[in-house]
């Protein structure tokens, strides 16, 4: 192993050597710089390998030939080597990225850069407090020096503000050091830690000054105006170092210093961390400047790590796993994002639309924000999971809630930004991307995924990157250059194969869901053959969603379940975002979904009491005081996915604006994830009571109200796909209602809805999508009379609406029949009233859908339309066949499930013998019904044909219309505001109260962010005053609390 002292000596020497070179020898100077940084990286990585693979012990490096405390000592351990590697790699990559700039600025800039990296390495390595001070000051000087080299007034101003703040920090630090020394008689950090008691007892202020000065180096909110200015104005490659490397080093310093203070000081770190995490993320909401936004985000992330540091007393051996995961993920992601910002010319967020034509860069961006937020399979995900579990087991629930709230804020602005990039109406011109810059960015991406792999290995929960479905989805990334049709074939084959492979492992419940997800998904994907070109981004997203779904139903422990849940959420988010107008809807989708996922995380953490691999079946044995809370959290999480009323506002836009073949995936398949979750929840937890309130009873009400309001809202829609989307809310309400009945038939009905809703909603979305494709509009009043032009689509819609409405003889009736039988033995009757009211309302919108699109008056501009494309029609016809089969023989799918449900509710099952299905209360014979209706219908039809054989086909306007013949279909087609009387009578029930509520929440947050960020006046002295005020406030608040 190379002596770590060289990590200091070599860069320092190289920096001096650069000073000796001639100014013109820029290439050699640059080569020396790169070589030095490469050397440092190599040394750090060799130590890292040594520590991690060969398990060598941490090494103490002595200087000046004597033992500490008489000389400075350095320490090299696993954590140090990781941090050093992070710092040096950031430096190396940044200097590659900075090639042009460094050539322009010359050797001095390179020397300062080397000193900068060296100083940060020093901060990590040193165990001497005064030495730490020296390295920190060196960092400050190097930072300010690098900023000084720019000729930009903005960054000069920022640099000066930074120096002012650093001066104050260094005064505090020095005073703190000297008094701590005075009390303890040593400058060695470990020595001081040994005398911690003495120091804290005699002079807590001295330690406080040490601590707070180092914390200030972390740029905590709100004492950080100067830092944000640097982030905003400096060269992005430099900001990358500042955000990734300096933050790493400073956190290391704080961590060391807290060894001296002991556990009593951890709440300080926690408090400051929380304030930073939430405050910075809140302020970032109001940002339109990309680099300032990233600055806020960095402050927030460092706040998060500070929180983690504040928890190290309880994190135990997981401390480094968690802190490291978040820290490294942040470092890689933020460096990557800053590097990317160098490719974009303007500083508004919308200027990033320039990346739109570069799928690789989009992928990079996605990876970075996923790293930041901690989505699977990145380190933050594992870390977050572990952290929340430990916190929950220690009862620090409030802290979890705050952390998750901050994370949600962060999600909001990061995903909004991403949405803007893909979907903002103006598209900035494509930017030039110098290859070395792009290479640097890609290496950050690789690093990020590599970290994901490593953390997966370290986690002990199972590495997500080994799961076949996720790997299969990732496989489509390198295949993106292939034509879409080929990829579609792969995707379909993959789904079907996975189903066949997994088939023996499914129990009946899983089988129903798996059949919908895998072969069902393949069926929907048939429609995707319609698309030509390469369709970049579709397949990785879709398969990521499918991977999540198929892992979800097989999940046995809470971690697998949660990982699958987040995966399917992300995949579906990208799918939704593909719609042209879907940016705001995709955003609200991801916010509600991740909000729900966070509740789930909290729920599992509470339930498991700290066991991160909590078997789902153990939900049954959660302590009784916790159980109702766990139930509520999980139920809300699942209901965000089924779009129960209150958390439904994302669904209509998301489903309606999605692409033709995406809508059925979302509606027919994705919604079922929530239902599956509810099944798992209810199977394992059953009924729960909170303060005497039966929670399943509450679910019953929510289901009923969702059904009613979903239907009500559907009837007022002018947009056909929105109508279908609202109808899904209602249908999921029915299913939720069935589940919440907590009896045999209720569950059977829910499952029937799972199957039926998949079939008819996929079919309807495809038909309407096909029509919309042909007519170029989704507004129903702009269509009309398409029956003769698009007969197959009409048939699909006709069958679909008969099935949805529950009219015999199609399968929807079976659902209704089971429903009535289920409520016969239900305990609560009042919610039924609402369901009863909801039922007939479905007819309203269904009739409107088919009438205004296919019947009525054909518009002039549609006279030449053709039937929807073959590939869109094909799955619809298959669905029609399915509906018929399912209508005749519902037992095919339900009989096994009925038996399965008997495990949970042995009574009230159905009797499937013969053709007639009987329950305790009634009977139903699908085949007889079909035959009787068929015979009657055919007889009467033949009779009409016979008596009416001379009927003449007449033209469109040959109608009796107040003795006139209208010639304008627009004025004769009754379609707009179809149910006006209904709106007059009951319109008050569909006031968008929920939407208004969530809008107000968003509005409040944004307004607060926008007002409060004016705190950062831009005045360097104000910042300094804020800094001092912060120090004083922390001191007094801290003392007050302690």
């Amino acid at each position: 192993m190379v002596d770590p002292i060289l990590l200091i000596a070599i860069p320092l020497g190289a920096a001096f050597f650069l000073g000796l070179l001639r100014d013109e020898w820029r290439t050699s100077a640059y080569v020396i710089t790169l070589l030095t940084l490469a050397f440092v990286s190599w040394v750090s990585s060799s130590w890292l390998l040594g520590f991690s693979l060969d398990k060598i012990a941490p090494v103490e490096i002595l200087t000046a030939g004597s033992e500490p405390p008489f000389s400075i000592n350095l320490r090299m351990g696993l954590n140090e080597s990781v941090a050093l590697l992070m710092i040096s790699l950031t430096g190396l990559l940044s200097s590659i990225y900075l090639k042009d700039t460094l050539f322009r600025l010359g050797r001095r800039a390179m020397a300062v850069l080397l000193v900068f990296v060296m100083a940060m390495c020093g901060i990590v390595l040193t165990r001497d407090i005064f030495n730490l001070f020296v390295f920190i000051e060196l960092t400050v000087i190097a930072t300010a020096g690098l900023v000084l080299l720019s000729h930009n007034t903005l960054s000069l101003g920022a640099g000066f503000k930074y120096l002012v703040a650093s001066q104050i920090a260094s005064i505090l630090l020095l005073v703190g050091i000297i008094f701590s020394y005075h009390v303890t008689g040593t400058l060695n950090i470990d020595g001081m830690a040994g005398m911690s008691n003495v120091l804290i007892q005699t002079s807590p202020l001295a330690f406080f000054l040490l601590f707070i000065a180092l914390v200030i180096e972390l740029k905590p909110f709100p004492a950080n105006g100067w830092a944000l200015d640097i982030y905003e104005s400096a060269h992005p490659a430099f900001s990358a170092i500042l955000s990734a490397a300096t933050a790493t080093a400073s956190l290391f310093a704080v961590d060391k210093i807290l060894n001296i203070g002991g556990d009593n000081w951890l709440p300080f770190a926690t408090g400051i961390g929380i304030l930073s995490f939430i405050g910075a993320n809140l302020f970032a909401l109001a940002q339109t400047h990309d680099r300032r936004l990233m600055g806020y985000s960095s402050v927030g992330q460092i706040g998060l790590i500070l929180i983690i540091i504040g928890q190290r007393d309880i994190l135990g051996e997981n401390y480094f796993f968690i802190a490291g995961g978040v820290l490294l993920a942040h470092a890689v992601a933020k460096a990557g994002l800053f590097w990317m910002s160098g490719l974009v010319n303007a500083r508004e967020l919308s200027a990033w639309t320039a990346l739109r034509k570069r799928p690789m860069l989009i992928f990079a961006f996605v990876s970075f924000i996923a790293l930041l937020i901690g989505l699977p399979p990145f380190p933050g995900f594992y870390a977050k999971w572990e952290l929340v579990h430990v916190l929950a087991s220690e009862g620090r629930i409030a802290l979890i809630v705050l952390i998750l709230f901050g994370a949600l804020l962060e999600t909001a602005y990061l995903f909004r930004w991403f949405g803007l990039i893909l979907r903002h109406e103006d598209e900035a011109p494509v930017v030039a991307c110098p290859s070395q810059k792009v290479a640097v960015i890609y290496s950050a991406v690789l690093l990020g995924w590599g970290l994901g792999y490593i953390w997966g290995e370290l986690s002990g929960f199972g590495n997500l990157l080994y799961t076949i479905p996720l790997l299969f989805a990732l496989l489509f990334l390198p295949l993106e250059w292939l034509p879409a049709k080929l990829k579609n074939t792969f995707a379909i084959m993959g789904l079907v194969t996975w189903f066949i492979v997994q088939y023996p492992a499914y129990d009946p419940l899983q089988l129903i869901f798996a059949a919908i997800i895998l072969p069902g998904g393949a069926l929907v994907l048939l429609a995707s053959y319609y698309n030509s070109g390469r369709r970049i981004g579709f397949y990785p997203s879709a398969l990521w969603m499918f991977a999540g779904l198929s892992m979800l139903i097989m999940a046995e422990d809470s971690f697998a379940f949660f990982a699958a849940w987040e995966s399917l959420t992300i995949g579906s988010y990208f799918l939704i975002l593909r719609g042209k107008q879907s940016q705001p809807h995709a955003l609200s989708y991801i916010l509600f979904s991740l909000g729900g996922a966070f509740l789930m995380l909290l729920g599992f953490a509470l339930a498991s009491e700290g066991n991160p691999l909590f078997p789902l079946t153990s939900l049954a044995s959660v302590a009784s005081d916790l159980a109702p809370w766990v139930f509520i959290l999980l139920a809300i999480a699942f209901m965000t996915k089924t779009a129960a009323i209150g958390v439904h506002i994302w669904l209509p836009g998301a489903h309606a604006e999605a692409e033709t073949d995406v809508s059925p995936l979302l509606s027919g398949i994705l919604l079922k994830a929530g239902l599956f979750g509810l099944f798992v929840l209810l199977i394992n937890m059953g009924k729960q009571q909170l303060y005497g309130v039966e929670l399943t009873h509450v679910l019953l009400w929510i289901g009923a109200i969702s059904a009613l309001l979903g239907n009500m809202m559907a009837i007022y829609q002018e947009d056909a796909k929105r109508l279908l989307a609202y109808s899904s809310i209602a249908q999921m309400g029915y299913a939720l209602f069935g589940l919440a009945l907590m009896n045999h038939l209720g569950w059977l009905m829910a499952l029937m809805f799972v199957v039926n809703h998949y079939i008819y909603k996929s079919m309807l979305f495809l038909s309407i999508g096909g029509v919309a494709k042909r007519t170029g509009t989704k507004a129903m009043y702009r269509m009309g009379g398409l029956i003769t032009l698009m007969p197959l689509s009409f048939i699909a819609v006709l069958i679909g609406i008969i099935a949805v409405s529950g009219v015999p003889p199609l399968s929807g009736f079976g659902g209704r029949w089971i429903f009535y039988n289920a409520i016969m033995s239900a305990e609560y009757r009042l919610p039924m009233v609402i369901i009863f009211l909801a039922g007939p309302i479905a007819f309203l919108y269904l009739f409107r859908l088919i009438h205004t699109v296919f019947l009525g008056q054909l518009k002039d501009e549609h006279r030449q339309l053709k039937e929807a494309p073959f590939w869109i029609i094909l799955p619809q016809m298959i669905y029609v066949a399915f509906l018929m089969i399912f209508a005749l023989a519902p037992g095919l799918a339900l009989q096994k499930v009925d038996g399965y449900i008997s495990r949970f509710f042995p009574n009230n099952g159905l009797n499937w013998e013969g053709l007639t299905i009987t329950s305790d209360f009634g009977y139903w014979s699908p085949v007889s019904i079909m035959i009787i209706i068929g015979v009657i219908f055919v007889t009467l039809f033949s009779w009409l044909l016979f008596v009416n054989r001379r009927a003449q086909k007449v033209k469109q306007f040959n109608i009796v219309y107040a003795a006139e013949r209208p010639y304008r279909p627009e004025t004769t087609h009754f379609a707009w505001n179809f149910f006006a009387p209904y709106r007059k009578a009951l319109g008050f029930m569909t006031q968008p109260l929920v939407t208004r509520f969530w809008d107000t929440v968003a509005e409040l947050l944004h307004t607060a962010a926008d007002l409060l960020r004016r705190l950062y006046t831009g005045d360097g002295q104000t910042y300094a005053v804020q800094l001092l005020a912060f120090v004083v406030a922390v001191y007094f608040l801290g003392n007050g609390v302690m």
Partner: protein
Amino acid sequence: MEYIALTCGFLLILIGIYGALTQSNILRMIVAFTLANTGVNLVIVGIGYINGRTAPILDTAVPVAEAATRIIDPLPQALVLTAIVIGVGITALMLAYAYKLFTLKGSLDITAIKELKW
């Protein structure tokens, strides 16, 4: 004696910080910080001083054997040297900023540097 040094030191720090926060001219701010740094240095040295002892120079006047009881703490004095050096470095850097800001903006008013905010 050491209390006078310490008091002076803290007084200087306070004056320096007060100046840095209230003076809008960049050069005056730099001077104020220098003042504050001096105060810090004074505090450091003042901490190391022990009444009635001599300078930590080992020569004939102070034999090695008696050093521990006769000299003041040498470490703060060593620290102060480093602190001074760093202080000079930073002061120089600030002056360079002042110069460059002046050439670019034609003003030394810190309150005029507010382009970046919120």
